[in-house]
């Protein structure tokens, strides 16, 4: 029953995102827009662009994740869907995790898949499909931490800027390890030490985030 309930929440989130239409690709579009704007500010010099590519890609990923974060729990809280999850006896930890996972699948994964395109635009030396993996791992962590910010501010109106202030410090390790690792990949050195640290970070976020989210949503 537990597994069915969690799967139902996951499917519901996906169909809601699908029905939302244009909102679906908003974070990916935001990500692409940031990356396309950057060369106009930095200048077209290939060496300069390639050097700033890893950092810019991760910063753009963080900012793009913020665009839709507040929607993870807010609408459900307003219509009372969260109360139903709670009353159904379903574990709130799993329910919140399912919601964040669906949200990530719709908003985070497309950004990770866009990484090679972004790297080409930023004139990176060696662009391979390997470059997807650091952003993939980083985006998981970013959405899990983001979920905490979203759950803490779910009961507030216009919480966007507040969420950004709350969770930006939590993005520091992801940006550091992620940009370092992406730099490794984009300069043709293959995977480096950062990948393990990125994965460790994702696991830490996975261990902490569901409990914090369910605690934050319990007494709203």
């Amino acid at each position: 029953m537990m597994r069915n309930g969690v799967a139902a929440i996951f499917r519901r989130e996906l169909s809601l995102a699908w029905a939302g239409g244009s909102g679906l690709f908003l974070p990916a579009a935001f990500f692409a827009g940031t990356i396309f704007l950057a060369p106009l500010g930095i200048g077209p010099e290939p060496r300069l662009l390639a050097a700033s590519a890893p950092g810019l890609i991760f910063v753009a990923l963080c900012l793009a994740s913020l665009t839709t974060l507040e929607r993870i729990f807010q609408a459900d809280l307003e219509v009372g869907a969260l109360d139903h999850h709670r009353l159904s006896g379903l574990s709130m930890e799993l329910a919140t995790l399912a919601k964040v996972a669906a949200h990530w699948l719709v908003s985070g994964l497309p950004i990770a898949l866009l990484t090679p395109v972004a790297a080409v635009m930023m004139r990176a030396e060696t662009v391979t499909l390997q470059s997807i993996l650091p952003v993939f791992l980083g985006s998981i962590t970013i959405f899990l931490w983001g979920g905490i910010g979203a759950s803490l501010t779910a009961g507030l109106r216009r919480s966007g800027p507040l969420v950004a202030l709350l969770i930006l410090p939590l993005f520091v390790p992801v940006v550091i390890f992620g940009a370092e690792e992406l730099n490794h990949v984009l300069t043709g050195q293959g995977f480096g030490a950062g990948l393990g640290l990125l994965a460790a970070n994702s696991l830490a976020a996975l261990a902490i985030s569901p409990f914090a989210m369910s605690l934050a949503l319990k007494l709203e």
Partner: protein
Amino acid sequence: MFSTFANPHRFLALSKWLMPLFAVLGAIIVATGWAWAFFFVPEELYQGATAKIMYIHVPAAMVSLAAYASMAVCSLLFLTLKHSIADVAAKSAAPVAAALSFICLVTGSLWGRPTWGTYWVWDARLTSMLFQLFLILGYMALRSAFQREQDAARAGAILCLVGAVNLPIIKFSVEWWNTLHQPAGFITLGGSSYAPEFYWPLWYNLIGIGLVFGALMMAAMRAEIFNRQYEAKLARMNRSAA
């Protein structure tokens, strides 16, 4: 043990004389400590008089770290034991901790100009202190966004604990990224690497700043408790009038 001090009335009675005591002692120690540091401690061999900013910088850094740690402990106690005084303590420590982090960053920046040649470097310890300041500001902003005090308390406590779990990871990642700041030397496992004429004034100033922090925190806690008592009384009066 916790429940003994969790009683607001006992806290008010205790802090009524403890707060002024801390304030007076702290003011005396800080004043004499700075006088000691500025006029009597010999000048450092390589940095000259500029190293004396250490007597503000290091105590501010250490006490602000301790203040954040105390916020985390209070948040944990509040979430597990539901003592409202733990929440009052966490809330009251936040602005003082933020101010001390800010003092630490400003003095560090001023110290960096003559010694490193620049006001700001993206060095590991400066960066983690900057993000600690952001965590505390986020905590204060989150609390102030809620209308009801119990919502603010709960959300604040969760955020503070998540931040406390993350602070070591942030610190590690930033250290991995870049290190220029001199390694910790004042208190290490192998004893202090400071000469005694620098070591003792630093301890003295640390105690002074710690006492000032304690006094400010207790004053803020008393104000918060009085405010909550007033709100509760107002609500009761409104109910009986209606």
